[in-house]
């Protein structure tokens, strides 16, 4: 079953590669940039489903802090974007609010929000990619699942970062609603983990830097960082994400990602 899934993913990745080759005639740098992301995606395939707790620490220029406590459930979907359920616990006034997303590599994502005070499920527009998530320095698009098709690529150089050998790759968002003109991503050559991302705004000036710290490997395969720190260079604010209780292959299925599960999510 798993090998079959893997095979399908590899074949689809290969066919994408072929199509890309034929229609765009990629330069060597573009091809290498794409290959790196395909390899990174391939190495993480087969996690099936995962759950994790996320603590968000929002800091403003004056050092004032505000906390968001969030639970995430995700489901790997073969040949499509992942499904995810985001459940808010803090701040207290939004406790019980939950967010269901079916992401798609190219078409618009499908998103629903559950508002506990009214017991209302609201389908929302997924166009808002560039807006801040919960008042943080993370935009919605920074938190959505990585799909190879969402970017075009250009390999820049091999560079050493924090004592690690990394590929430095430029990524250009395909979606015109993205808040970025480009991202520069540092991926280590050994395990294909992302260590740093520079985000450039629509005017192509450096907006934010995201750093990944404390990588741990789960099920002898899947690397996840314990800490992600986003610094906004333009407004001086920062947001730190602390992940805990990562679990994979917990037995989640499609039935955990529908309107009913959204309404009772905790």
């Amino acid at each position, binding site marked *: 079953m798993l090998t079959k899934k893997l095979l399908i993913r590899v074949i689809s990745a290969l066919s994408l590669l072929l199509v890309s080759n034929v229609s765009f005639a990629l330069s060597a740098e573009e091809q290498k940039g794409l290959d790196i992301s395909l390899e990174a995606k391939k190495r993480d395939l087969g996690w099936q489903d995962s759950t994790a707790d996320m603590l968000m620490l929002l800091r403003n220029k004056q050092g004032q802090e505000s906390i968001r406590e969030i639970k995430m459930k995700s489901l790997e979907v073969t040949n499509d974007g992942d499904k995810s359920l985001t459940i808010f616990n803090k701040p207290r006034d939004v406790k019980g609010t939950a967010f269901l997303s079916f992401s798609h590599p190219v078409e618009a994502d499908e998103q629903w929000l559950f508002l506990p005070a009214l017991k209302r499920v609201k389908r*929302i527009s997924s166009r808002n990619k560039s807006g*801040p998530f919960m*008042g943080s320095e993370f935009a919605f698009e920074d938190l959505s699942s990585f799909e190879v098709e969402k970017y075009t690529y250009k390999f820049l150089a091999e560079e050493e970062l924090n004592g690690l050998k990394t590929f430095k790759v430029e990524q250009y968002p395909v979606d015109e609603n993205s808040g970025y003109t480009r991202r520069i991503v540092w991926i280590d050559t050994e395990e294909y983990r992302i260590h740093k991302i520079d985000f450039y705004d629509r005017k192509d000036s450096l907006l934010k830097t995201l750093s990944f710290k404390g990588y741990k490997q789960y099920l002898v395969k899947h690397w996840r960082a314990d800490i992600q720190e986003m610094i906004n260079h333009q407004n001086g604010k920062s947001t730190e994400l602390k992940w805990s209780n990562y679990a994979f292959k917990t037995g989640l299925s499609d039935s955990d990602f529908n309107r*009913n599960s959204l309404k*009772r999510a*905790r």
Partner: protein
Amino acid sequence: MQFSLDKASTIALSKVLGNTIKLSITAITVCANLVFSNPLSANEVASDVEFEVSGNVALEQRYFFKDALYSEQLSHSQSSFSVEPELYWQWNDGSDSIIFTPFYRVDSHDDQRTHGDIRELAYIHASDDWELRVGIRKEFWGVTEFQHLVDVINQTDGVEDFDGEDKLGQQMVNLSLVNDWGIVDLFLLPGFRERTYAGEEGRLRGPLVVDENNVSYESSAGQQHLDFALRWAHSVGDFDLGAYWFHGTNREAYLSPSPKASSSSLVQYSLQQYYAQMDQLGVDVQATLGDWLWKFESIYRSTGVEDFWATQGGFEYSFIGVFDSNLDLGLLMEHSWDSRGEVALGAQGSLLQNDLFVGARLAFNDMQSSEILMGFGSDLDHNAFSFLIEASRRFGDNFIASFDVRLLQSNEPSDLLYTLSNDDHAQLSLAWYF
């Protein structure tokens, strides 16, 4: 943001509690049956129960700009305090849960607004493709913002707020079936809840007070009539669809003036509530197309008194990151239509027979979740309008302050809004969440 202006008598807390106890026994029996008929889950029950308490307490201050229109009404200032804790238990990894949400409000003037309710006391069992929910619950249907036309399961808690979005808990047995072609919900609704209306001292009411003790029903079963509803809901690509049939007691009472027993020789009148039986068909559709949300709701209601159609439809358009900032601006427009047309005050019908609503929602997307909502409603058949602003912001981690202003105006003496035209007010509330 609903502009329903209904008021009804508060159910005495004892009545509520009476119903609740009956129901909670049903809930516990069903729960016990489920748990013990399944030996696997029975074993796990004791080991892994998670318990959680949360909720909020809130202080609210209203100020009415003009003097009261009717002599018994409070003059300008009205204060109140409310508490709504939520107790939650879950076991079997969340497959089974019990939720209990009591609510109580104390009001400085309106004794009908001093009231309590059990918003929720329910047991929920979730399986892969079905879910059973038994007890007192709240169920919302619909997609539009200015009027919740298709939302029918719960009775409106009319004394709570002007917008009619607060609902009384409804006793129910709800079986939800998940299929590839949509979710089907079956509801059995035993025990009807009468609407709450402002009392003598309360503002935001017409010249006559609705009498909580003068209530009649079409059904001989009265409040014990067993209502029934069947709903289908599905998402197909960009479309979210819903359709239902409801058979049972009309949540909207027909109100008629009735002489009140009085010690003086002067005959006083109050409004009698009459709850008819109804069959209602409803549909709701939302198309989510990029930055546009297109929304449509429609009902067909048939009672012994009348048959009619009503619709609510419109759109919401979002501008992301306006003025080169993090601000999101949403523009809303909706139209209400009712086949009964314009009606005289006191006659049966709808206030929203040909009304246009426009609104703007500004989300600051800041750390404090600051938000401003503005709405303007206008009757296109005669000169009447309503205007509202709602602004809210978080303070610290656990406080939310909200400031609302509502203005109502009508030049048409037959319009219900005309009787409320002295009730323009501002409201400040501070809620602490725990």
